[in-house]
Every structure is written in structure tokens, then in C-alpha cells.
């Protein structure tokens, strides 16, 4: 038996044969299992390849492309401030706390006693040490009382500052940026 050629099988599968050739192939296929199997395989190949899904691009593909095509306009100072509102607020709070601490000299009395000698020349330090010693003697228990309370207030102030910073960073990350981001998107 003469089997169908590869070309005939493909053309029969595609339906591109003329009427006479189509009829000839059909009558051959009715009696030839081998050629029938070939046509079935070709039909399956077409079916599977046409059902093949497209390959998706990775996420963010369009955004990356559009950033290259339409560059973002430069941000104005207002946008920059709004974008960093949380940071600006946090900085303002820290400055306020520090300002309050600096404006209250009693809070730094303990640091003055320990830190000042190391910042000035040795000769001055020695003289200063004598003055401080005599002053300390005269001030006696009253001064000690103040120093103790000042140390406690310092610790309290540092804790308060750190806690404020923590709250503000959380506020910045989880509330302000999201809220402002959503508002600007819409």
C-alpha cells in the first residue's frame, strides 16, 4: 500500500488540499491505520500548540518600561516635605525635647561637674578643679541633693526622648506615609 506523503498529511491536517486530493486522502485514511495515526498526531500537535499559554512578563515590567519612556517629573519642595512629613515631625519633636533640656540648666549640672575638665587645657583644669572642690565643700549636702535629683531627671529625659523617637518612627512608617501615599494616588 502506498502511504500518504508527509506533505499530504500536513496539508490534509490543515485542510489546504483541493477537493479531489482531499477526497483521495480521505478514502486512503479509511483503510490505513498508520496514516490515520499520523494525521491524528498532527492534529494533536496543532491543538496543543494553539492552547499553549503566552509567557507572562515579570511583575513590574510595565512600570520599569514606563519609567524609561516617560521620566518622572522633578519633585517640588512641597511634595518632598509631604513625602517626608513623618521625618520632619519626628525631627521637630526631638529638637523641641532637646531645646527644653538645654533651656533648663539644672538638668545638666551633673554633666558640668564631670565633663567640663576634659574639654579645657590642663592648667585651667587644675585651677578649676580647686575652685570646684572648695565650692563642693561649701555646697555640701544641699548640692548633693540637687545632683541626685538631676541625675534621675536626666535618665527620665533620655528615656522620654527615645520613646518619642520610637513612636514617631512607627507613626511615620505605618500611618503617615500610607495615608499620604493613598491620598496622593487618588
Amino acid at each position, binding site marked *: 500500500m502506498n502511504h500518504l*506523503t508527509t506533505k499530504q498529511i500536513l496539508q490534509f491536517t490543515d485542510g489546504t488540499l483541493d477537493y479531489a486530493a482531499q477526497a483521495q486522502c480521505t478514502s486512503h485514511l479509511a483503510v490505513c491505520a*498508520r496514516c490515520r495515526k499520523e494525521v491524528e*498526531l498532527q492534529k494533536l500537535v496543532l491543538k496543543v*500548540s494553539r492552547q499553549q499559554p*503566552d*509567557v507572562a512578563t515579570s511583575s513590574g*515590567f*510595565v512600570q520599569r518600561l514606563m519609567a524609561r*519612556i516617560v521620566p518622572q517629573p522633578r519633585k517640588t519642595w512641597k511634595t518632598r516635605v509631604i513625602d517626608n512629613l513623618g521625618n520632619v515631625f519626628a525631627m521637630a519633636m526631638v529638637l523641641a525635647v532637646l531645646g527644653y533640656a538645654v533651656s533648663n540648666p539644672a538638668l545638666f549640672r551633673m554633666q558640668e561637674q564631670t565633663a567640663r575638665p576634659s574639654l579645657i587645657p590642663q592648667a585651667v583644669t587644675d585651677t578649676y578643679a580647686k575652685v570646684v572642690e572648695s565650692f563642693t565643700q561649701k555646697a555640701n549636702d544641699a548640692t548633693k541633693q540637687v545632683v541626685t535629683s538631676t541625675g534621675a531627671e536626666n535618665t527620665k529625659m533620655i528615656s522620654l526622648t527615645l520613646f518619642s523617637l520610637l513612636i514617631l518612627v512607627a507613626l511615620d512608617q505605618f500611618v503617615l506615609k500610607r495615608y499620604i501615599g493613598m491620598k496622593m494616588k487618588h
Partner: protein
Amino acid sequence: MHEQDYAIIRRILGGEKKAYAELVERHKDKAMTLAMKMLKNREDAEEALQDAFIRAFNALPRFEWKSSFSTWFFRIVYNVCATELGKRGGQNIESIDEEVDGENTREPVSTEIPPDIALESSELNTIILQEIDRLPGAYGPTFALFFIQDMSYEQIVEVTGLPLGTIKARLFRARVMLRDAIVKRLGTTTEGNRQEKVA
């Protein structure tokens, strides 16, 4: 389909550059499929696609309204990928040239499909998909354009810039290669099954 593309293109040319994202969304996955078939590597395909979209954007004022955007854009993707293949060192996608009516097309198929094979198994579908991906050189993209993207011969001629005879020859060869590879795999599978049964 074309009308929607044309409407978007008019908006872009009218100054609404951001509308290009809509055009990208509509065509990126089909174009990615072609790029993957040609470059066979995801990162390279995405990079080539980005390049192609940028080129298309810049060339949009010169877009000829007589053809569809997809065919026009696919030609850009095809050229970008072909250039990339050339850079890889001697892989020239246009180097194969043959006639569709060669003597071999008139011969009956040589190897027979194993008679005990069921042609409706999911395993066979997987084999077919794998072998389509393995089609070498220019055969994969030509096959993809015709069967996966469902393009006509004329559209493929427009995309590739190759003569119709070459396209037909490539498609024919691709289908024969695919058939032989599938039958070979089926033969191996059948042989394996027989050995398992004997054991």
C-alpha cells in the same frame, strides 16, 4: 482589536504618553512568547522586549496605519532578538534557507508511530510542548508565529522580512522535526513500558 490599538496610538501621538502603558499591556505577553522562543532565556527575552518597546515608542510617529500595530511591533521584537542572537556569536537566525518542494516532502514518513500509543494522554501533551520549545534556530520562532500567535503567512513575511517560500519551508521542516522528535520520545516511552511489563 486593531481599532483599540489605533485609538491608543492616536492618544499617544496627541501627547498622552502615559497611554503607551495600555498598548504595552495589550501586547507584552504575546511578544514575550516570541522573544522566549527566539532567545530561550527569560532575562534576555525581557531585556530585548524592553528595548523593542522603547524602539517602538520612538518610532510611533512613523507608524504606517495600513498594518496592524501587533505585526509592526512583532517585526521590531523579531529584529531586536535576531540582533541579540547575532551578538551571542554566530547564531544567525536567517542562515537557513531551503525550498518547500524538495524531494523529501514527497516521501512517506519513515519511522512509524508506535501502534499502542494513546494519542490523548496528558503525557503526550507535555512531550509536544517540550519538543516545541526544543525546535532549533529559526524553526521555533516561525512555528510560534504561525501556530501559537496564529499569524498568516503574509503576516509572518512582514514580521521576518523573509520570502514566502522560506517561511513555508521552515514551517514544513519545523513540523517534520517536531513529529520525528515526538515519535522518538514515544518510542522510548513505549520501549520503557514494555521492559517494565516484562520485568
